[in-house]
C-alpha cells in the first residue's frame, strides 16, 4: 500500500473554493445529477482531486454516471496491515428486521420493474407496499396495526434516503434508485445468511443443518 504522506496531493492545484463546494455537499449526503446539474458537472470535472482528497479521510467516491448519483463510502478495509485502524467517518447504522426485510423487498421490486421496461421511476402506493410485506408477517395481524407498522418502517427508510414520499400525492412513495448502490448483492447475501442462522436458532427441536 502506498503511504499517504508520499502521495502528491493534486487537490491544491485546483481553486480551493471549487473543491470545497463539491466536497462539503458530498460529505453531507448523496449528490443527484437531476437535483443540481451544475454541481454535478463540477464534480465530474474535479473527480480526480475529490478522490485524492477523500482518500486521506479513508473514504472513496462512488460515482454512477448512468444512474446520475454520487456519494462517499468508507474504503473497504482490505489492507489489514494498516498500522492503525482509522475510525469510520461514515457510520454504519443498525437496522431492525422489518426495515431490513422491506429494503430487500423494495430492491426486488426495482429489479423487476427495470426488467419490465418503459419507465425509470418506480412509484408505489402504501397499499402496494403493505401487500408486499403482508405474507411475511404473522397471519391474522390486525389490519390497522399492520398499516401503521408499514408506515413506521417506511418512515425509517425515508430517513435513510432510499424512498421519498411524493408531494401532494397521499400515500405514494418513490423508490430512489440509489437503493441499488447500498442494497447490493453483498448486503443481501449477508442478510440472507443471518436470517438462515436465526431460523436455525428458533427451529425446535434443533435440527441437523438442512440444505
Amino acid at each position: 500500500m502506498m503511504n499517504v504522506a508520499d502521495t502528491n496531493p493534486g487537490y491544491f492545484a485546483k481553486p480551493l473554493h471549487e473543491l470545497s463546494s463539491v466536497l462539503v455537499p458530498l460529505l453531507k449526503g448523496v449528490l443527484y445529477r437531476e437535483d443540481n446539474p451544475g454541481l454535478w458537472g463540477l464534480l465530474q470535472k474535479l473527480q480526480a482531486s475529490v478522490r485524492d482528497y477523500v482518500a486521506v479521510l479513508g473514504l472513496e467516491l462512488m460515482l454512477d454516471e448512468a444512474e446520475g448519483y454520487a456519494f462517499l463510502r468508507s474504503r473497504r478495509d482490505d489492507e489489514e496491515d494498516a498500522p492503525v485502524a482509522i475510525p469510520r467517518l461514515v457510520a454504519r447504522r443498525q437496522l431492525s428486521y422489518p426495515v431490513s426485510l422491506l429494503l430487500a423487498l423494495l430492491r426486488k421490486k426495482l429489479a423487476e420493474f427495470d426488467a419490465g421496461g418503459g419507465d425509470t421511476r418506480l412509484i408505489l402506493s402504501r397499499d402496494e407496499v403493505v401487500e408486499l410485506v403482508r405474507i411475511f408477517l404473522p397471519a391474522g395481524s390486525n389490519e390497522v396495526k399492520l398499516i401503521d407498522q408499514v408506515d413506521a418502517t417506511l418512515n425509517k427508510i425515508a430517513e435513510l434516503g432510499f424512498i421519498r414520499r411524493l408531494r401532494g400525492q397521499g400515500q405514494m412513495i418513490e423508490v430512489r434508485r440509489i437503493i441499488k448502490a447500498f442494497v447490493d448483492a453483498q448486503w443481501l447475501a449477508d442478510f440472507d445468511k443471518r436470517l438462515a442462522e436465526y431460523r436455525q436458532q428458533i427451529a425446535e427441536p434443533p435440527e441437523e443443518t438442512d440444505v
Partner: protein
Amino acid sequence: MALDYATLELLRQNHPAWRLLCAHHAPLVAGFLHRVFIVPNVRNLPQADLVEALEDELFALREQLGDEAFPGSAQSYLNDWAENDKGWLRKFYPAGTDEPHFDLTPATEKALVWLEGLTERAFVGTESRLLTLFELLRQMSEGSQTDPQVRIAELHKRRSDIDAEIARILAGDIPLLDDTGLKDRFQQFLQLARELLTDFREVEHNFRTLDRRVRERIALWDGSKGALLEEIMGERDAIADSDQGKSFRAFWDFLMSQSRQEELSRLLEQVLSLPPILAMCPESRLQRVHYDWLEAGEHTQRTVAKLSEQLRRFLDDQAWLENRRIMDILHSIENNALAVREAVPSGGFTTLSETSATVELPLERPLYRPPLKTLITEMALDEGDADVDTAALYAQVVVDRAELTRNIRQELQGRSQISLAEVVTRHPLRHGLAELVAYLQLAGEWPETVVDDEVQEKVSWQLGTGVMRQATLPRIILLRN
C-alpha cells in the same frame, strides 16, 4: 387479420378501443378525451388540469341530465379509465415531478378516429388518391431498379415531359386545377395530415413494446453467460435499428430542416388562401399543422431517446448479472422470512452504511447556558364578565388553497415564470393576509422558485371596511415545472 368469430369475440373482450365503444359511459369518455387531447393536440396532461376539466364537464352534464347522472368523482373516473381492464389512458410520472400525468392510449385514439369517420363526407375524392398510389408505385419500382440503363431512360422520359410542359406555358397555355380537383386533393391532404398526428402515439407505443420485448427476452434468458452477453451486445441498438426506428428517423430528418419548414409554411399559406379551399372552411390550426407534427415528433423522439438510454443501462452487463444474482438471493430471503414469520427477530438485525459522513467538531457544540427560569406570578383567575363582541370567533374565513394553486398554474400557462406579486395583482386577495400567507406557503412548496432578496415588492388589498392594507415582501418568482 382474419375477422372470424373467435378473433372478434376475443377482440371485443380485450381490445380497449372496442371496450370503449361498448362502455356505458362511452359518450362521456370519448367526447371528453377528444376535447382535451385530440383537439388541442396535447400529449400529456397533469392530473390536476385533467381533473378540473372533467369536473366541469360532469357539472355541465349533471345540469342537463339531473344530479344522479355520473355518480363518481372526476378523479375516480380518471383512475378507472387508466386501469388495465379499461386501458383508455396511460398514467405515468414524468421525470422531475410528483404529479401523475395522463396521455391517450393508441387504442383510444383509434376509437375516436373511427367515431369521427361516422359522419358522412360531402364528397369522396378518388382522383388524388389514385395519383398518390401511382406515385408510390413509381417510387418503389424506380428505387429498386439496379440497371442504370433503365433508370437513365426513365429520367430522359421525364425530362422530355418537363420540356414539353415548359414549351406549353411559354406558348401561353397554363393548365390549372379546377375546383373539384383542388377540393379532392385538399380532402386527402387533411386526412393524411390527421392520420400522421394520430400515428405518433402508436409509434411511441410500438417503441415501448419493442423495449419491453427485448427486456423480457433478456430476463428469461437461460443460456450461458457468454451467449447472453453476445445477445445483449446485439440488442443495444434494438430500438434505433428496428423498422419503426428507421422510418421514424427518416421522417424526423426530413421535417427537421429549416428550409423544409419554411417551404411547408409557404405552401400551406398559399393553398389555404385559395377561394375553393376557403369555401370548405378549414380549421385555422391547419396553418400550423407542420408545427404540430414537429411537436408530436419531438415528443416521440424524446421517448425513443429515453427508452434507448434505459435499455442500454438495463443491458449494462454488470448491472444485469448483479440483478440476476439479487433475484436468486431474494428468493432464499423470502423463503427464510416465511419460515420465521411467527417469531420475527427483534432489535438490530443488519447494518448498513449511512449515505453521509458524520462530522462532529467539538467547537461546533454550543456552550452551556443556564436554563431560563420561568417566573409564574400566582394569581387566581376569575370569571370575567366583560362584554366582548365574539363575532370574530365565528367569522372565520377559509382560504381555498386549490384555487390559489389554480391561479398560479393559470398564470404560468402563458409564460414560464411569474412573480408572486403579479399573481396577486391579477387575482386580487379576497381574504387579506390569510390568503397572502397561503400563497407564501404554496410558493414554499412550489417545485421551482427563485427568491430575490434584493428586490422588494408591494402587495396590497382592501379590507371589508374599505381600508387599504399593504405588505412588503422580497420578490418571489415561481417557475413553470
